[in-house]
């Protein structure tokens, strides 16, 4: 009886495995049958789709090829260097940045210096003091939100720009989430509903 159960469970699991792999295989075969090329890479189709964006190659994973939108030109107040120049000697303290309120994790866990480098204001820094450009903040985010960043790097989280095919350019974490206040806010729906109440 025990033998039978073992055999049955083995068959079950191997079936499962087989199903999983065959799904991929089948889709692969299908790709071949539908022209063999996979996606259509036509220059004409892609024309003018990415001209409006400035982007850089990601430094996330060498196997996973994608580009991220630049962040430098999105600063509302101005570039850090305008005030924090070595000649001007304006102290870089929290009291000089009252427009920023940090509502991200609790105060014991995070403060300004967790991400910002007080000496080199062009760059952020990781927990191990490794320098990170402001154009690549996902490396910083991944220190805690590694699951989200993994999803984002493959397209299950976040947004792509410039169309569904061709060069994959995606928005940075900080394009959508304010790093000082990452929670999405409440608001009224954009349109009035046009359907009857289905609630019973």
């Amino acid at each position, binding site marked *: 009886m025990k033998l039978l159960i073992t055999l049955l469970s083995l068959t079950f699991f191997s079936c499962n495995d087989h199903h999983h792999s065959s799904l991929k295989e089948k889709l692969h075969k299908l790709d071949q*049958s539908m022209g063999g090329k996979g996606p259509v890479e036509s220059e004409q189709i892609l024309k003018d789709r990415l001209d409006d964006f400035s982007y850089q190659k990601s430094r996330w994973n060498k196997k996973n090829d994608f580009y991220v939108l630049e962040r430098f030109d999105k600063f509302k107040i101005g570039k850090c260097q305008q005030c924090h120049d070595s000649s001007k000697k304006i102290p870089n303290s929290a009291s000089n940045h009252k427009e920023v309120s940090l509502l991200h994790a609790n105060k014991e866990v995070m403060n300004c210096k967790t991400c910002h480098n007080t000496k080199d204001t062009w760059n952020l820094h990781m927990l191990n003091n490794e320098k990170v450009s402001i154009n690549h903040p996902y490396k910083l985010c991944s220190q805690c939100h590694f699951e989200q960043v993994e999803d984002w790097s493959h397209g299950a989280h976040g947004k792509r720009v410039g169309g569904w095919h061709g060069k994959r350019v995606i928005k940075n974490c900080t394009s959508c989430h304010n790093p000082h206040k990452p929670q999405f806010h409440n608001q009224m729906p954009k349109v009035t509903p046009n359907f009857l109440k289905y609630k019973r």
Partner: protein
Amino acid sequence: MRNFISNLFKHNKKTSSSQCPVFSQDKTTTRVDEEKGAKQILDKKQNRRSFLKGMTATAGAGASLMAVGASNLIDKDAKEKAALKWEEFFKGNYRVMTEDEKKATVKRLEELSRINNNQNVSISADAPLEGVLFGYAFNISKCQGYGDCIEACIEENNLDRKSNMQYIKMFEMDHGKLNVESGDAAYFHQVPKDDKFYIGTQCMHCENPPCVPVCPTGATWKEKDGIVVVDYDWCIGCRYCEAACPYWARRFNWAEPEVPKEKENKNQHYLGNRKKMKGVMEKCTFCVQRTRKGQEPACVEACPTGARVFGNILDPNSEIRYIIENKKVFRLKEELGTEPKFWYYMD
């Protein structure tokens, strides 16, 4: 999932004409249709249609004689409009048109838009791309119910503003429930509300669409890239498809659709967002006028939370394929065997 895959295999073999009861009756006719287009068919067979064609020519000649006689009374645009409408009335179904016929009808429609609304629109008849099967994924953990997608859809697809027509239906759901019948599609308050989540539905572009075989005129069909489309000029407004669709995806024009002239989207497609008429069905087309040029649908582009993902499911490196293979996915009413190409997933 397995059924879907097996259906995908069939996808290649199926011809679009085989789904339509009208065109599948006579196989030889269908083949000729594909080869030579609608006009040649009309010429060949001596049946009711070719008789009507003869009538067209006669009446056309008569009309032109009349026009010459009354040229002082009728202005140029009105004459042109009458001639264009006359030709439009006798055109074939989009599926059996040759490339030239498609170009001609598109040109006529553009001209009619100029005469009727003083609006210069550009209507395309882009064919499906090779090696592409469109799929869509919706993240129910991320959607906040803001409705930016609905707003973008209305503007992109020139939907009737008077009746507030919307292709996308957004349900506010209680946690722990996944049947959309229990949701509330008429919510209007600050969102996201505590203890609620949001599911957006629209046309699922099924691999096995139940709305297609019920159409008595062959006015709706599935294109090679998986998009289910409607030829508005062949729709007679019987609403069988609306009754057949289990996802409430189809919308009916009870009155002439009204779109403010300055807000009309001029980038149009024959099977997509061109001006619809009173008494025809319409539905989401995955923004065919955008997606066949490589752009994302308007709802995907507008979503502020990134809950909507669109792509080619035949491309093994696409985002949508990653989601289907690696995330927890489900589809609505899978037990019906409609094989929708619209996956819901969660984090």
